[in-house]
């Protein structure tokens, strides 16, 4: 990957890649691994991009797929090597942002189902239902309904934490 490619085609979307990777990881080490893998996969698959969607949608799609794949791999490994008790403990956030409300929100997002995490983050990034639907592979109507449900869930989780 040329540094030009990284600077022009990945870095402008680093924000959402970072946010997505953070939602699927519990430590700084994992986060860096996920981020690196996403960049690597974007570079590897750049020749498969044929303008069927916008570049940003393509980047989000790859980021999400990589995060879900790595998460699945990690879960499989854990099932073999780590007790359920330890796995439970790991869902707690081991690294934090300086903003406490954001930490709570992230902790709540991490409690959501894997796809719901992606949907709510894309929603919070002000992506249209159409674009989210393209990335996730569903219809904009479904996204609309799902976003409302996720927001309610998040509110319940956040209220529980705050109280």
């Amino acid at each position, binding site marked *: 990957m040329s540094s030009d490619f*990284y600077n022009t085609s990945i870095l402008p979307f680093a924000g959402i890649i970072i*946010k997505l990777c953070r939602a699927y990881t519990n430590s700084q080490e994992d986060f860096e691994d996920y*981020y690196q893998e996403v960049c*690597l996969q974007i570079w590897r698959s750049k020749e498969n991009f044929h303008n069927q969607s916008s570049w940003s949608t393509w980047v989000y799609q790859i980021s999400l797929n990589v995060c879900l794949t790595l998460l699945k791999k990690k879960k499989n490994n854990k099932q073999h090597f780590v007790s359920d008790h330890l796995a439970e403990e790991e869902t707690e956030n081991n690294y934090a*942002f*300086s*903003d406490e*409300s954001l930490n709570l929100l992230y902790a709540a997002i991490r409690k959501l189902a894997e796809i719901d995490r992606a949907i709510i983050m894309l929603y919070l990034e002000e992506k249209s239902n159409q674009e989210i639907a393209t990335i996730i592979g569903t219809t904009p109507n479904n996204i609309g309904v799902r976003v409302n449900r996720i927001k309610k869930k998040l509110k319940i989780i*956040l209220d529980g934490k705050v109280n």
Partner: protein
Amino acid sequence: MEKSIENIWKEGFLKNDVLVAPTLNNLYNQKSIHIIDKFKRMFKINLIAIVGFSSLFLVVSFFIGIPLMGIIFFVTLSVLVVINKNLLNGIEKIDTGASCYDYLKSFNLWINKQVNINQRLSSILYPIFFLAFILGFWFKEVEGIYLGERLVTKLLQLFPNMDLLFGLPLIGIGLVVFTMGLLAFFGGKIYQWDLNIVYGRIFKKLKELLTDLEKLNTQNN
């Protein structure tokens, strides 16, 4: 007042320290390994395909009455496979503990050596393939007579004054030698063209990565 999740999100990410992209320190190593592994895999598949094709063709050639062509193809391609298998073993000698840049540079040197040897080989192999093709059909028996002999007899009926050398039409020998000469001359180019079709994308990525690392090195000096 209780903040909405949208506001928490927006305000939380206003601070600059939150969205710092991690450094991609290991990325180049991962990519080098990916490129080289892919090349090795493709190279091995290519060699297996050549072995498969030449063996199959050898068997088929006996059934369709052109065994000479099958045998020459098989022997020539086997030599090619043995040479390239030895070359492939050379990749394993590249020091994987070296820095990413040195590793890629060694790999690039190996590729250049491999291309160079195969280009020279192609100048010999393509004429041999052509000769095998001609000889294969020349010695194909139809109703107890070789096709080549039939052709000479027919040509002598049409052109009784035709010049012969060792019982073969001189013009035919000339044409075969000329074509073999052309193939020997352009063999390297044909190989290069063939190589780009199969490995073009990998070579492009390798070049891109090397240029990138060279740029990084000059920036750091």
